[in-house]
């Protein structure tokens, strides 16, 4: 019997400069968001507002950790973490830069050509370039390596045929980073994949909306029919796509957005509670507060590992699965405690509940399903 050394969650204390930044961000959000209604705050990083994104960029809070020569600000990962958690906690509409700041920018920094970095990173950091991610296909969800969209070499680039689905916000984005099959290697589906920067307005690309059960439109189907992608828009080496996507998904899984999506509802639940709540309500709220505080500590600990240049893949998967369970539990608990009907109108609580009840099922799907995460965790524990 001994300690399990497979995962580590060392406590992370934020440095003073990060805490000082928190005050600035809060002040900015108070001024910029004003009295934005709770139901809008509940959209979290689903809110897409280019003007807001440009304002955030002007403060230097996009591409914070990137080198200055690419428009970045060379600040620490922990300072960036504070900006992210404050934006999420306030329900700021960060959707127009979230993807680029979180994963596309770091991907280009690591694997992109110098020309790609110079062209795209400063524009992202200025808040002028929104990116979308094209990975899933109609027959390839969790089994991502089975994608079939083909990019065949032609003169000066590639000819692309196939279909991507669940491509969030590509109808509003300036570019998408898509994963295509550049070579078919029988029996080796992880080989022959490559990533590309694609202009969604190019000829041969058709974007069709996929409406969510709530009636909202984020998702799209993207059909490629002999679409041309220039050679210099390939990201990284041909055939290295799987490795690159793995690194990208680690960024996608490790942030505070994986436990804060229902914070707006917990806030409204506390608002609905009397100053002297009954025992049942106090226990329910207190338990959620304990989970929230613990998840934040765990999430910060992952941020600390990223700051030190470590690779917290297992830890990120643990926090994401715990975090999305927590997010999905909050609407359930509000239901059970108050029995109030989730609606589109009515009280703030009802509206926030209405929005989140309809969106919560996606929390344990996006960025790697619960099932995939638990597989990653089991492998990390030595079981696969």
């Amino acid at each position, binding site marked *: *019997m001994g300690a399990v050394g497979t995962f580590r*969650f060392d406590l992370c204390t934020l440095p003073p400069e990060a805490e000082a930044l928190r005050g600035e961000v809060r002040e900015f959000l108070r001024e910029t968001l004003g009295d934005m209604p709770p139901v809008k705050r509940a959209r979290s990083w689903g809110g897409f507002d280019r003007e807001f994104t440009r304002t955030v960029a002007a403060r230097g809070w996009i591409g914070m950790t990137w080198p200055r020569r690419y428009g970045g600000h060379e600040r620490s990962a922990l300072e960036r973490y504070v900006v992210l958690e404050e934006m999420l906690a306030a329900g700021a509409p960060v959707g127009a830069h979230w993807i680029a700041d979180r994963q596309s920018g770091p991907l280009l920094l690591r694997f992109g050509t110098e020309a790609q970095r110079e062209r795209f990173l400063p524009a992202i950091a200025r808040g002028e370039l929104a990116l979308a991610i094209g990975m899933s296909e109609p027959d390839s969800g969790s089994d991502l390596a089975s994608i079939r969209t083909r990019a065949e070499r032609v003169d000066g680039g590639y000819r692309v045929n196939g279909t991507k689905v669940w491509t969030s916000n590509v109808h509003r984005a300036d570019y998408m980073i898509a994963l295509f099959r550049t070579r078919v290697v029988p029996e080796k589906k992880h080989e022959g994949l490559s990533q590309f920067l694609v202009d969604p307005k190019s000829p041969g690309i058709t974007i069709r909306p996929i409406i969510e059960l709530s009636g909202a439109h984020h998702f799209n189907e993207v059909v490629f029919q002999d679409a041309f992608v220039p050679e210099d828009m390939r990201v990284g080496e041909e055939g290295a796509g799987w490795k690159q996507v793995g690194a990208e998904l680690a960024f996608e899984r490790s942030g505070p957005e994986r436990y804060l999506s229902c914070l707006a509802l917990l806030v409204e639940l506390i608002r609905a509670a009397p100053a002297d709540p009954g025992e049942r309500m106090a226990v329910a709220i*207190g338990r959620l507060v304990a989970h929230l505080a613990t998840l934040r500590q765990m999430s910060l600990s992952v941020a600390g590992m990223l700051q030190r240049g470590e690779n917290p893949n297992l830890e990120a998967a643990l926090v994401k699965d715990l975090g999305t369970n927590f997010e999905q539990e909050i609407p359930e608990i509000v239901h059970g405690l108050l029995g109030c009907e989730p609606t589109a109108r009515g009280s703030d609580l009802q509206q926030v509940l209405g929005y989140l009840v309809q969106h919560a099922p996606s929390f344990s799907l996006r960025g790697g399903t619960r099932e995939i995460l638990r597989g990653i965790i089991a492998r990390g524990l030595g079981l*696969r």
Partner: protein
Amino acid sequence: MSELRSILADTVTRLFTDRVTKDVLETAEQGQWPAALWQALEESGLTLPLVTEKQGGAGGTWGDAHVLLAAAGRFGPPVPLAETIIASWLLSESGLEVPLGPLTVAPVHRGDVLRLERGSGGWRLSGTARRLPWGGSAGHLVVVTSPDGPASGARAMVALVAAGHAQVTPDHNLALEPRDTLVFDNTPVLTAAPAPPLIPGDIVWLCGALARSAQMAGGLESLLAQTVQYAGERKQFGKPIGSFQAIQWQCAILGEQTAAAASAAASAFSAADRSGPAEATFEIAVAKSRTGEAAGIGAGIAHQVHGAIGFTYEHSLHFVTRRLWSWRAECGGESYWAERLGREAASRGADALWPYITSR
């Protein structure tokens, strides 16, 4: 983890690996005091982490105590290590001499009130202390009292009482750790002193919850290690059961609960080092309620994966799970601490939730 702390972790892990054998655990359950184990702990200087070096202790931090208590959770040594750590800290903080040998602390049961009165020839103690860990076998007892009961803000008193002066009714918890009831009737006290201002009347309750959080988090680590190992070894349908997704899922959830418990406990000890346990009530409440919930889920999964063999006395799994089931309720269960957190959150108000969480 600092270098000194990882040396401490290695020392205590080695000692427990050698000394907390199945035989020691089983004979302790039959009522035998594991004298050799206690002696080894004392000789290695592991029982007084929070006592100043001048007073014969290690002069360490709550972070050091955390290392020892998490290890105690993993191995389940049948001795009052947590109680001795807390009791000796209380004596040291109050400027009182720390005696050798195992100590226990009171009161640990909600509603128990102990009264300290100055009589002819010194202080005397009266009242009933229920379910004291090793109450009948510890050499000395450290009592914290306050004039208006344990929850009041009045200046507390810390007193040291020698064993053998109380009327003892022996009992034990599910893990067969002694939980004895002691009745004091004008009992003479060895020494007593006013506690420093940062030690309130409910300090034993708070520190007890803090210690049990670390022990439960340690217990979960042991469950995870045993369960993953068993899932890799046990074969059914021609392959290790750990190759089945259903079992992998269970182990993944156990891993998540173990990680959450460890983080919550570590955070509370770190807060205790920043500002003292009394000012770390929020983190202690979070830790006790979160580790307790994790303990319930974790024990269930560990038994499910181990199947019938884990349900036997022959197997060693129960040395951990019976402790978790007991510790979970001691010094306030999940609902007690959650209710406190919930009431505080409601009185601070909805918009203070996030600022408060990030200020801790």
